[in-house]
């Protein structure tokens, strides 16, 4: 929608504004804006400035190591990578067969626990300050500390929902991180009756809190119309996995794409055929690729993934409270997919409610404590594709083996990459709407970050460096000289610097 702002016709005489790094997201990215003399935006880009190279890193490794190794891609959702890799490596063990019913249920429990904790982190820790206090609130207050101070009960609920999800992961994998749960061909250890009862003890209150959180996200969105519908506006198709009957399913299924008019563009597409569907465009100014739907070309093939896509593409939720929430959401769209960038928070909390309900269903299933965790084998294959709906959207792992059963080819498309174009379009929409002709303030800059944050992007993979969180805005005159700088220090304070 706003691709005219991807590249300015000429950069002569334009002022450059840099937001680096983008805050309250995972990883390192920056935004550059080029403004003309009238402060109209001529170019806006979200750059991903870190190169991962993880695919090359795992080539040559034994495939049985891969699900453990790929967990290290991400500090927020390592289990998503473990599960996608395990699914992709299943054919190396069981060919075209299926893993055992108990193994699949344990993987699902692990996955829904993972999405629950990651969504809680995003909504409560990172997004809620903007939603509760407004985009122009004092930066020193507009953060999780402010939420915990002003809305202590709400903030603690968020922390406890995340804690619950993390405990699910710990009980199923033995450790909080680097544990082993899913593995090629099945699941490593059975669930003990004691751990099952521990999880069941708190799940009803978790569901209650998730339901209340969904209502909060809904009310914030609906009470701020039309701004929250128009903010960062973009229009795309939506892609996600669904069960073959169209029910929302985060662990397994077929690929469905719904167009902006509500029509189904792709239905029942097998995950193994993802390369027929997705092309990745490279741009010289970003390490992250720009995927599009190959059968529809660059323009009509623009799509987004994530909770918003999941709620938009499915026909129903498999659990009652999440289905009631989905129907409210769909009613707002009046027959078309909801496109609003900020509706992603509402959709994410429907997603979270779904996770809590599914966790309860799985825990009440007698098969969840079964002992048959591997088996169902067929003739092993040498290529596999695993796709799941990770917290931020569709996650694809694709591997091939050499004759020594080591990885000879790896291709990973992570959720944030799918949304690269969407994030850039939302940034441009905000820049065009709010920046044109105005003085730059922290509140204006925050709007750019709010648009990016709505996608909950994971821009890198759990590298961390304490104290390296500067944000510097530079105004450059027509001769390319820096005329002023605005710095945001790690404590959130702004300081005007004079070169």
């Amino acid at each position: 929608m706003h691709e005219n702002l991807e590249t300015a016709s000429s950069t002569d005489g334009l002022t450059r504004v840099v937001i680096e790094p983008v805050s309250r997201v995972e990883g390192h990215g920056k935004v550059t804006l080029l403004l003309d003399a009238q402060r109209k935006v001529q170019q806006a880009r979200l750059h991903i400035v870190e190169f991962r190279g993880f695919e090359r890193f795992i080539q040559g490794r034994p495939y049985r190591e891969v699900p453990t190794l790929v967990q290290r891609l991400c500090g927020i959702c390592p289990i998503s990578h473990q599960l996608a890799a395990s699914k992709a490596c299943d054919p190396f063990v069981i060919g075209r067969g299926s893993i055992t019913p108990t193994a699949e249920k344990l993987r699902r429990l692990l996955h829904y626990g993972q999405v629950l904790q990651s969504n809680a982190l995003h909504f409560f820790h990172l997004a809620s300050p903007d939603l509760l206090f407004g985009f122009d609130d004092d930066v020193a207050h507009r953060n999780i500390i402010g939420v915990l101070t002003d809305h202590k009960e709400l903030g603690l609920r968020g922390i406890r929902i995340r804690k619950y999800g993390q405990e699910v992961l710990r009980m199923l994998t033995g450790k909080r991180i680097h544990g082993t749960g899913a593995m090629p061909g099945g699941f490593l250890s059975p669930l003990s009756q004691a751990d099952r009862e521990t999880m069941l003890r708190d799940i009803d209150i978790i569901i209650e809190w998730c339901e209340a959180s969904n209502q909060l996200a809904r009310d914030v969105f609906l009470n701020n119309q039309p701004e929250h519908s128009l903010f960062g506006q973009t229009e795309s198709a939506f892609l996600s996995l669904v069960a073959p009957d169209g029910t929302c399913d985060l662990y397994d299924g077929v690929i469905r794409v719904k167009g902006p008019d509500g029509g189904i563009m792709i239905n029942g597409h097998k995950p193994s055929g993802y390369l027929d569907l997705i092309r990745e465009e490279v741009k010289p100014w970003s390490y992250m690729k720009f995927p599009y739907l190959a059968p529809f070309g660059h323009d009509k093939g623009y799509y987004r993934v994530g909770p918003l896509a999941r709620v938009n593409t499915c026909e129903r939720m498999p659990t009652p409270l999440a289905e009631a929430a989905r129907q409210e959401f769909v009613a707002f769209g009046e027959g078309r997919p909801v496109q609003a960038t900020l509706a992603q928070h509402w959709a994410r909390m429907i997603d979270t409610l779904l996770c809590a309900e599914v966790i309860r269903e799985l825990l009440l299933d007698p098969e969840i404590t079964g002992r048959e965790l591997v088996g169902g084998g067929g003739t092993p294959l040498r290529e596999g594709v695993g796709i799941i709906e990770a917290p931020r959207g569709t996650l694809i792992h694709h591997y091939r083996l050499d004759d020594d059963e080591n990885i000879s080819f790896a291709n990973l498309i992570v959720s944030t990459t799918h949304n690269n174009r969407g994030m850039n379009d939302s940034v441009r929409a905000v820049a065009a709407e709010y920046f044109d002709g105005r003085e730059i303030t922290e509140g204006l800059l925050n709007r750019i970050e709010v648009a990016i944050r709505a996608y909950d992007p994971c821009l890198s993979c759990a590298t961390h460096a304490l104290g390296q969180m500067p944000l510097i805005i530079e105004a450059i005159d027509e001769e390319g000289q820096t005329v002023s700088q605005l710095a945001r220090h790690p404590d959130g304070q702004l300081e005007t610097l004079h070169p």
Partner: protein
Amino acid sequence: MTASILIFAYGNPARGDDALGPLLADWAEDWAAGQGLEREIQVLTDFQLSPEHAYDLIARRHVIFIDAAREQTPSCVWHTLTARQPATWTTHASSPAAVLWFCQELLQQTPPDAKMLSLAGTAFELATGLSTTGEQSLAAGKSTLERYLQSVLERVPN
């Protein structure tokens, strides 16, 4: 029963010297098992610190946070931590002082005596091994941690 001493290491094992925390945690776990001290010492690792880790501090007497550090000259730096409210919040990750603050102010629990063990690293890109600096830091960290644990254990009632 909750172990009175918690060792909490954080870092990404796939990021070269960022693995220093988890590697020292592995060593500490083996050391505690070798001494028959599993009930007194619990070892936890994570990629990053975040507010919910405050729950892990409840009912502890001592906590030792371990992390890799950039731009640190000594191999191993040891210092005492106090609870401190973060001035703001710009990342997914929290600091050890903030986790102590969450424990104290939000959970209304007295935080344990807290130490920070920072291990110098120089290479944080994707890699399976440590740099030479990292290897030296790990060795220094082991002896520092062992000395501290032995001194604390002498004071911990059975």
